[in-house]
């Protein structure tokens, strides 16, 4: 079911660069997980990052959002800010949002409270003393709740949600944060085909206003929604292009897609 | 409340006298640490006080009334001592409180006892520099233990002193006094070390002692640290023949916990030993063992606690009342044949005259008396009678 919206060969930049990853190398006590990786993210782009298990995709996102400090390299914003020198919360305040591979919501808080945390615009400690929690549900929140289908679960402890529901909640929190750059690590893992489709549409509409990086293994999904695909392998950039181009790369087929996929691609 | 405890105690321990105590009794408080680190020392004092109360009750009580002890636990915490003292005086309206061990506990009870105009009998040797009108001090003050022992050591063992104590009020004050005295009497301090309460490793200190090579280690360590210190001293190959140690807080009870083999030959200064030869002591020691077990030992603070109850009884009987003012007035000059020998209450400062004794630990864990002061020494808590002592308490 190929999407009518997709224009296969469109590799041309849709806008200016919003984030540029330059020569990032990450090593964990000797083990090099990312090795001189480069990545350019442009505005309003739905950018997929794929590659074999252990290629370093998650680590790459970790570097961008400040969770992991690289041995060398830079992550630059257009104004020249180097994110590798910033703390996590500063990076978040600069407009980088992140969804983790394993769902990570605040289990002790309700769904609504989780969303409120993301919604709050001023995140200073002193400022927060003034606002009361448990206020009305904002308009933006209501919208997001509908989008993620958790409207009737606002008072449920997030820890009691199912795996998939947590994924949705986390996406919802990201939406409320309104970041310029969204980093999503396997957002559709564990979703039914139909739910996957819904998420894809959601991502596409989000990408109209901002840039989105998605790490994903569901090739159907990538094929359908990717505007640009970057393939990582053993910590390095393997190739970049549209899904079609990438699929035809023999190395990608060899290390990642597998025989069957290769056949799929050829046919 | 405390009543329950009272009934329990009189019910079990003083069964034969219980019947007579109905209605017409005099309450006294017994306030020691029954839990926490200080219980190691204080429980035995409580036992001795209970023994005295039981004996007095068996002999007809005080002013014809039975004594009704209200036991409370100070839990090794000064604030609790203060609280419980207040409870005993205000709630139970006891005629007197027997209790405390550490100076901290005494200092904590002091304002409570004074503001309630109560009476406290404090049974442990201490650092002096105090004389509350509401407290009777039945342990030694410094001139009844420390000062004479330093003189004796200077004469008999040598001039070079190493001062070792726990890091708290009594040892620090004691060592200040010793330093002043040594200066005046021609001795020398070659080292002074304090270890935190509960310190259990003395390897470094022992190395320091070795390096300083003193004639005498004057030991003001607190109970438990003594065990560690002496065991480790012995392990380091230092015996009483190499260096004399004189302790002021190591009595028969502590020897049992340290091991007589470790302490044999070391010295202590006290006013009483289990081996002190008086008829009263024979009686006391037998009664104590009969009540609490053959393996129990008596010791100076235990005797002081026991004596305190009898002194209070004598004062009450002389006053014909338990009224505090009257008892205090009557107490002046009261004499009592204690297990440690004759004691007399000094009307000026409410301490008691005591005989000073220096003893040497024997292999059976008992002391052999090497020297005594011959007659009871008048208490001088502010060391006013010593030329060198003036500076210490000068206001």
């Amino acid at each position, binding site marked *: 079911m190929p999407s009518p919206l997709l224009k296969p060969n469109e590799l041309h930049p849709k806008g200016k660069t919003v984030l540029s990853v330059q020569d990032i190398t990450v090593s964990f006590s000797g083990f090099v997980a990312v090795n001189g990786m480069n990545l350019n993210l442009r505005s309003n782009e739905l950018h997929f990052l794929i590659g074999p298990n252990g290629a370093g995709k998650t680590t790459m996102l970790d570097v961008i959002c400040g969770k992991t400090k690289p041995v060398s390299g830079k992550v630059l914003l257009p104004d020249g800010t180097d994110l590798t020198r910033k703390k996590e*919360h500063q990076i*978040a*305040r600069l407009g980088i949002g992140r969804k983790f591979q394993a769902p990570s919501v*605040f289990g*002790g808080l309700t769904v609504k409270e989780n969303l409120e945390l993301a919604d709050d615009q001023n995140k200073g400690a002193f400022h927060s003393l003034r606002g009361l929690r*448990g206020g009305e549900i904002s308009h933006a929140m209501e919208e997001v709740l509908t989008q993620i289908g958790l409207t009737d679960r606002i008072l449920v402890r997030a820890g009691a949600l199912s795996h998939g529901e947590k994924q949705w909640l986390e996406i919802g929190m990201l939406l409320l944060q309104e970041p310029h750059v969204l980093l999503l690590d396997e957002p559709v893992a564990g979703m039914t085909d139909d739910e996957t489709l819904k998420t894809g549409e959601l991502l596409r509409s989000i990408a109209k206003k901002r840039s989105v990086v998605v790490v994903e293994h569901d090739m159907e999904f990538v094929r359908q929604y990717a505007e640009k695909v970057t393939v990582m392998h053993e910590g390095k950039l393997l190739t970049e292009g549209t899904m079609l181009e990438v699929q035809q790369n023999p190395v990608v087929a060899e290390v990642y897609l597998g025989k069957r996929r290769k056949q799929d691609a050829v046919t | 409340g405390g009543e329950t405890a009272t009934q329990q105690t009189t019910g079990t321990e003083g069964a034969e006298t219980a019947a007579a105590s109905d209605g017409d009794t005099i309450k006294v408080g017994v306030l020691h640490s029954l839990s926490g680190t200080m219980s190691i020392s204080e429980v035995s004092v409580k036992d001795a006080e209970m023994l005295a109360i039981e004996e007095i009750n068996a002999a007809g009580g005080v002013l014809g009334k039975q004594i009704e002890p209200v036991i409370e636990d100070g839990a090794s915490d000064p604030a609790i001592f*203060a609280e419980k003292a207040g409870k005993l005086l205000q709630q139970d309206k006891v005629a007197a409180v027997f209790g405390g061990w550490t100076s901290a506990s005494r200092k904590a009870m002091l304002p409570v006892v*004074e503001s309630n105009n109560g009476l406290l009998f404090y049974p442990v040797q201490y650092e002096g520099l105090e004389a509350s009108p509401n407290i009777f001090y039945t342990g030694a003050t410094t001139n009844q233990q420390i000062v004479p022992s330093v003189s004796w050591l200077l004469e008999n063992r040598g001039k070079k002193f190493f001062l070792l104590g726990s890091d708290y009020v009594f040892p620090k004050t004691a060592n200040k006094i010793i330093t002043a005295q040594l200066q005046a009497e021609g001795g020398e301090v070659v080292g002074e070390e304090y270890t*935190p309460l509960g310190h259990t490793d003395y390897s470094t200190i022992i190395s320091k002692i070795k390096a300083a090579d003193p004639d005498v280690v004057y030991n003001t360590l607190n109970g438990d640290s003594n065990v560690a210190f002496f065991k480790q001293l012995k392990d380091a190959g230092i015996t009483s023949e190499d260096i004399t140690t004189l302790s002021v807080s190591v009595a028969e009870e502590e020897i049992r916990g340290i091991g007589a083999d470790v302490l044999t030959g070391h010295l202590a200064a006290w006013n009483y030993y289990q081996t002190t030869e008086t008829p009263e002591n024979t009686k006391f020691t037998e009664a104590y063992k009969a009540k609490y077990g053959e393996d129990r030992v008596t010791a100076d603070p235990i005797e002081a606690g026991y004596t305190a109850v009898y002194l209070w009884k004598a004062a009450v009987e002389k006053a014909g009342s338990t009224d505090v003012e009257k008892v205090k007035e009557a107490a002046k000059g009261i004499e009592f044949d204690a297990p440690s020998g004759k004691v007399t209450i000094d009307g000026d400062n409410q301490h008691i005259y005591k005989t000073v004794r220096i003893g040497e630990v024997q292999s059976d864990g008992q002391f052999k008396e090497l020297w005594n002061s011959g007659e009871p020494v008048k208490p001088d808590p502010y060391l006013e009678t010593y030329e060198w002592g003036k500076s210490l308490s*000068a206001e």
Partner: protein
Amino acid sequence: MPIVNKLGVRGQRIAWGIVLILMSLAPLVSTEFRLSLLAKFLAVAILAIGLDLIWGYGGVLSLGHGVFFGLGAYAMAMYLKLQASGASLPDFMVWNSVEKLPWFWEPFRSFPIAMLLGILLPALLAFLLGFFTFKNRIAGVYFTILTQALVMIVVTLFVGKQEWTGGTNGLTGYNQIFGMQLHHPTTTIMLYYVTLVVLVLAYILCRRIVRSRFGQVLEAARDGENRVRFLGYDPAWYKTLAFTLSGALAGLAGMLYVLQVGIISPSMMGIVPSIEMVLWVALGGRGTLIGAVIGAVILNAAKTGISEAYPEGWLFVMGGLFVAIVLFMPRGLVGVYHNLSRWWRRKGGARDAKSVVEAERATS
């Protein structure tokens, strides 16, 4: 009790009103001694509230609150001691051959300054410790051990610097404040009311905080500190602020405590009392402010009562109590209350989840 819950939030307000009125009537029925005990319990309840703020809501376990408590207490005690000494040096300084009042004692001649310092000093210490450790992301037992180290340092110094602090004896031997006898019945009653008012104010303040966005972030950081960072919050600041306030409240509690008890010594700021403080909060119900208050008052009352009743065996009873509470009421007394009221609600007809959540919030 569950009936209260059936009455809803408004009913609970009324119930608390009744409790407060009963508390203010206590001096009429209680002996002086019991009243001052109760005041002491209320004083330490202030500390419990602060401890709950940082532990129950912030998930940061401090075994060092004895120090903050002690600093407040010493500040007040220094004032009282100087008052009692008049023109001369405090007695223990004389015994320790101190010739002149140390400079840092001078400010404590003034009551307002002493009071201010009694709050500011512990707050400052808490702030410094919190700021560096939270910035450096020291968390969990590592932080807890750090607070224990703090206790050891402060206690050892207080014990060792006898000539300035009174050593193990602590500061005692003062009987008056503003010319009134501390042990006088009227003073006792006044101090009781002062303590009660301060407690209520502290409670209201902390309640406002836990119900603010601040409290929400604090709770979120407890569940996932890193996650909070990725939302753009700096949890270090939140924790530092909460810890500072917690320290200040502990100091406040210490000041009131000294007025009731008449003594402060290093043994009251040590490891054991610091652990006991945590036990109050745990018993009452961590994460609910009222639980902290109830826990502090009940556990202290139990300690006093049980040790009076069984001076030689009370540790068995207290120890057994701890074990039983943990086994049978994992969420403390407040948890028991919630279970009861939930059970009651189920019997009295189903309610929607919303009211459950709100009811539980209301009691927190």
